[in-house]
């Protein structure tokens, strides 16, 4: 459908700003580059939902801005609009009808951006930076869920300045995902809480983390009937845990796998271990993509427990990724994620967002 197979508008290697066309390693996969990327690290990406025609990509960055691009079928990206916060933007999400975008920022507020009018209003306030924001659409209510470093999870009706509900968490929220009727929040100190969202959000279960180190990203996956059935949890230690909520045989069904490490089978030299920065599930195939601080992305089939593909190494870590609503486009952002501290931060270094045709590479390995 979308013709991202060959690069049309954008050449490989040089960005066109520089005259040379050396294939420097900023785009070794020769994917389509998005025009006008943000000036600082991209923290989050989100594609528009299927209710809206076309593909629109939203990206939030550490330059305090949120940008919107239209991604056309021929691969061209057209910058459409931009909004600002007063602090770095950490998470973005779309409403279910595709008319609004919600943005969460370190300035402790979350805003609702009406794309038609290009206006924003503040809809949420926390005591600490807001790390995650998700739109919840239930049969009997709709709200925005914000998770913050102030250890609370709040639910906002966008019309009211006070939260509809506020839930206390054991620690700072580090990542979250929502697929109605389930929400998963991973916090600091290896906290992991599952919420159920029917009628009203309530804590369903606290789970002992299958991972030994800090949680970094989480993504819910669905079963064959499109019901959320479990989640994938990534940590800073190059490991992802696949966890089902109610598996028939937990010992066999739940597992962890290592990823984003160097030196695959050579155990003589110590491995470099990189953080898993984001996980996304393909909306159609159910396979997943992970992106890491090593500057690679990988595709996996969790049912067949195999790796489908690993990319070449980019020269910067990959900080965010997402699939579009029909699974044809995989977007990933190449920018510094602070995994090595401030010494490796170069504000002059260009940040990129790449788009890749995801229809073929993410097909599951064996149909069971």
């Amino acid at each position, binding site marked *: 459908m979308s013709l991202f197979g060959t690069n049309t508008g954008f050449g490989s290697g040089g960005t066109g700003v520089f005259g040379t066309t050396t294939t420097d390693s900023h785009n070794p996969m020769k994917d389509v580059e998005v025009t006008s990327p943000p000036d600082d690290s991209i923290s989050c990406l989100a594609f528009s939902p299927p209710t809206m025609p076309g593909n629109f990509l939203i990206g939030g960055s550490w330059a305090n801005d949120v940008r919107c691009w239209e991604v056309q079928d021929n691969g061209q990206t057209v910058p459409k609009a931009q909004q600002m916060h007063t602090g770095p933007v950490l998470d973005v999400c779309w409403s279910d009808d595709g008319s609004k975008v919600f943005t969460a920022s370190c300035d402790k507020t979350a805003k609702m951006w009406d794309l038609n009018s290009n206006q924003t209003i503040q809809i949420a306030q926390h005591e600490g930076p807001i790390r995650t924001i998700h739109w919840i659409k239930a049969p009997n209510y709709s709200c925005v869920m914000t998770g913050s470093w102030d250890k609370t999870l709040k639910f906002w009706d966008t019309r009211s300045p006070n939260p509809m509900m506020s839930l206390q968490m*054991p620690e*700072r929220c580090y990542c979250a995902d929502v697929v109605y009727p389930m929400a998963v929040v991973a916090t600091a100190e290896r906290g992991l809480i599952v919420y159920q969202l029917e009628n009203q959000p309530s804590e369903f279960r606290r*789970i002992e983390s299958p991972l030994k180190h800090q949680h970094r990203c989480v993504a819910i996956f669905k079963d064959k009937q499109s019901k959320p059935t479990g989640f994938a949890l990534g940590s800073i230690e190059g490991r992802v845990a696949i966890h089902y*909520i109610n598996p028939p*045989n937990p010992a066999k069904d739940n597992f962890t*796998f290592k990823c984003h490490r160097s030196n695959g089978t050579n155990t003589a030299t110590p491995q470099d271990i990189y953080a898993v920065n984001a996980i996304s599930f393909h909306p159609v195939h159910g396979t997943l993509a992970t992106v890491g601080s090593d500057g690679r992305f990988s595709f996996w089939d969790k049912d067949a427990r*195999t790796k*489908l593909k690993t990319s070449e190494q980019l020269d910067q870590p990959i900080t965010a990724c997402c699939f579009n609503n029909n699974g044809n486009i995989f977007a990933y952002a190449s920018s510094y994620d602070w995994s090595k501290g401030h*010494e490796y931060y170069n504000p002059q270094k260009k940040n990129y967002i790449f788009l890749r045709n995801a229809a073929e590479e993410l097909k599951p390995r064996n149909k069971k």
Partner: protein
Amino acid sequence: MPVCNFFLQGRCRYGEKCWNEHPRGGRGGDFRGNQQPSRGGFGNRVWINPSQRTSGDYIQPSSFSHSGNNDWSRGGGGGGGGGGGTSQDIKSSDFSFSSQNRFSALSSHSHSDKGGQNTADDNAKHVDTIQKDMEIWQTSGQWPFSCYSALNGQISGFVELSPEELRLEYYTGQASGDLQTYMNSVQQLANQWRSRVQELRTMSSSTQISVISELNNPSSSTSTQGFVSTSSGFSSTASGFGNTSSSSSGIGVGGFVSSAPQSSSSFSFASSKAVFGESNTQQAPGAFAQPSSGFAASAPSVASFSFAPQATENKASAAAFNSASAFSFKSSSGGLGTGFSSSAPTNSGFNQSSAFASSAFSGATDASHSAGSLFSAQSDLTADELKEFTAKRFTLGQIPLKPPPAELLTV
């Protein structure tokens, strides 16, 4: 024939060819489907069975066990690299009893429940696991500011900070023009991490004792809540030092002190100087009632308590700066040694065999009346505290939190 121990654990490599005896019926251990409701303290503590449940059909009342951490063993068509392979650990420990098979404890049915297990074995395995993990952590270049847990529960002494939090601190520091605070605190955190990792890796006997007691007694473990964000505050922890401590605590600077009794709570950073105090919780965690303390917010005067001026490095942490860590958090200024509690009066508290060292004395509570004062007036102390101070030695469990009165100090 001698009985094959590996077979009993379910992992004999030779199978039928094994020269040792494989008793049928003694082998319980190949499947790991134990319905253990929770694994260790962490799970127990926070297990919640909500009373209300709606009818979403993925929600079922059964509990499930968490023991299914099988490493993803074979990537079918995948390329090399991350996906496959057994863990590095198993390789080296194939023939050792203190194995990396974390589930051997759970899987052998010859012991019906964990109570029947030989806990010494368990502990040895845990210690071994921890050591190996520390080694990997040091050499791999992975993010240092992360919590860490061994099989049972979390090991204390690690600050949990996400890269985003650190980055935000940098940006706010940059905006306010004061990056030095950021640099200092990062340096301090890095030092603390290095020393803690090294301590756990070398695992002296006292570290071992404290770690094991922590694992077996999860309620005593302190969780360091690394961060409370403000516009300028930046949290840091001061670690235990050398080999005697197992946990770290920190200091709250004005406004943030949420001191939970056992856990070292969030702390924020004094603006210009690093102020450390620390206390150690060892086998007797109850001994030090309040590891954290509150200070008045005005930074420089707080430094009256600091005994770690930038210049001094403490010997323990100096030893801990091994270059094994591939992670470079370079220090731009002279590093602040991790807080070393040589508090004013005596240094003799550092007794490796005895469980504690002199602890942080600073003013106790949020109300923080000891704002900046090093000693308390005798009238400020309760009778008990006065008794402690005048006694020859402190009694564990009753060590006063307020600083001693100047009059009692004999130097």
